[in-house]
């Protein structure tokens, strides 16, 4: 249980929302580990608690709702559910970063794209404005934005959805976090762009030595990308294991149903 190699150890995590005074539990005591530099997948249908789990690791509650977390989230030995808000704020972005589902609404429309990377670098890397901008341009180049020096001064509405997700990835990796949580990073994107974004995430994970928590509702996305998978259903982890083993012999009926939903082409492509 207490694997010293683990970067993140989650134990009996629960999450409970308060809906008009009525508590409703949406994560029912789940446990999992992520090792340094490891890519792990989380699969499950809509509403099974994937995003709530991801946000619990960041200790972020959605605006205007109160959520109570239980259990332990050990990150390099520190329990994220018990540290001071100050320390947690230093962790966010610096140690643990997150890429969200919808790139169209995730960038601040009134700030330039560059400024939204700059502020992160100034905050965590303590860079001056000019040094931050130099690094921002490098980062934009790294995630595949052409003419990065020029585009840094553009506003988000001048970018396509795929490019915005690249920018959000640049923001997330800017301070070289140990863990990158990607919550359905391709769901809102065009099919052709999806593969590019996933490849980008995997490449950056390898190059920067980041652990990757890749959340999706689509087994096809996970295939060939991650080593291990956790299957979530109704706030529980119902099955976990190596991707290949899971594909070969799913134990839980829900996992089987999920696998059956993967388009044939994906599976065929994987086996050849």
């Amino acid at each position: 249980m207490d694997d010293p190699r683990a970067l993140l150890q989650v134990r009996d995590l629960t999450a409970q929302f308060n809906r008009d005074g009525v508590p409703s539990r949406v994560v029912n005591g789940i446990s999992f580990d992520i090792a340094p530099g490891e890519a792990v997948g989380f699969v499950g249908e809509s509403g099974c608690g994937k995003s709530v789990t991801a946000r619990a690791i960041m200790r972020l509650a959605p605006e205007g709702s109160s959520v109570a977390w239980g259990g332990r989230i050990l990150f390099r030995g520190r329990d994220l559910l018990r540290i001071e808000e100050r320390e947690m704020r230093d962790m966010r972005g610096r140690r643990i970063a997150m890429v969200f589902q919808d790139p169209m609404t995730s960038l601040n429309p009134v700030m330039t794209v560059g400024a939204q990377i700059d502020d992160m670098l100034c905050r965590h890397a303590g860079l001056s404005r000019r040094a931050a901008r130099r690094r921002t341009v490098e980062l934009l180049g790294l995630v595949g934005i052409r003419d990065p020096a020029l585009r840094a001064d553009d506003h988000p509405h001048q970018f396509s959805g795929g490019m915005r997700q690249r920018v959000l990835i640049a923001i997330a990796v800017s301070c070289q976090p140990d863990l990158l949580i990607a919550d359905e990073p391709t769901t809102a994107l065009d099919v052709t762009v999806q593969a590019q974004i996933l490849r980008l995430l995997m490449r950056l994970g390898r190059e920067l030595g980041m652990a990757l928590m890749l959340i999706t509702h689509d087994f096809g996305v996970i295939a060939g990308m991650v080593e291990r998978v956790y299957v979530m259903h109704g706030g529980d982890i119902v099955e976990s294991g190596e991707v290949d083993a899971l594909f070969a012999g799913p134990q839980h009926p829900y996992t089987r149903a999920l696998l059956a939903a993967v388009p044939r082409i994906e599976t065929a492509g994987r086996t050849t």
Partner: protein
Amino acid sequence: MIRMVAVRLALTLPILLGVSIVAFVLMRALPGDFAQASAGTTAISAEALDTIRRNLGLDQPVWQQYLVWLDGALTGDLGRSFATRQPVTGELLPRLTVTAELTLIAGLMALTMGACTGLASARLRGTTDWAVRGLNSLLLAVPNFVVATLIVLLAGLYFPTVGIFNYVAFASDPLGNIASLLLPALSLALTVSVTISENTRAAVLEVSSQDYVMVARAKGLRAWTILGNYLVRNALTPVITVTGLQLAALLGGSILIETIFTIPGMGQYLFDSIANRDYPAIQAIVLVAATIVLLMNVVVDIAYARVDARVSYD
């Protein structure tokens, strides 16, 4: 951007023309005219009244009177006041500056109070939200002339030494001048601040639940950075809109407030002119007020483009 401003300014001209026609006709549709109003209750022969009308050109058809007025207005001559026989422009300008100052002070007060209470209400929620909204409903239910009357009453009752009707001219004592306008401006600002407060609150709440605010929090940014660069900057556009629109309300309110506090501004001038049926004066005031409101709208549009890069007028 410059083209947009030029186009908008050019568009104000036909609007002003329309406003001047409507005002011209409406005024003459009011019962009575200057001759009767100036006669008051004293009995004057019908011939004498007719002589007055002939001298002022009131015996001619309305459209002809309008053309004469328009001809003068186009060359910057707004005619002479019936009551004083002085050029209207000369009478209006000093009063206009007084009203402009009052409206400006009231506008700044309303914006500060409204934005601060709205922001606090949206960010702190709980008791603060509850208190602000309660106060807002109360202020909204009470018209500003009642607030003004209350201020006058209370000040007279508890601080009889503080002269509240002592309007001080700016030229003679700038600080005293501003001080003498504070209470009138406050009573003018309260109702408007409610609108700004409610709109700020709604805008900030709306922005708070946006994804990019969650992203900002996930970046570990400091609370002040998130507040300034993510919440306030995005909530600014709707707040600018209401503030601009409320300027018309402030101008309208100043008529009553100036009358209550006996401030020699445009409002009191309008009040007297209407009572006298002093057509040229009324016409000039309406025109100036319309111009101010129209210009303010252009300023609001410029402000949009400065705040939000998505707004482009090309």
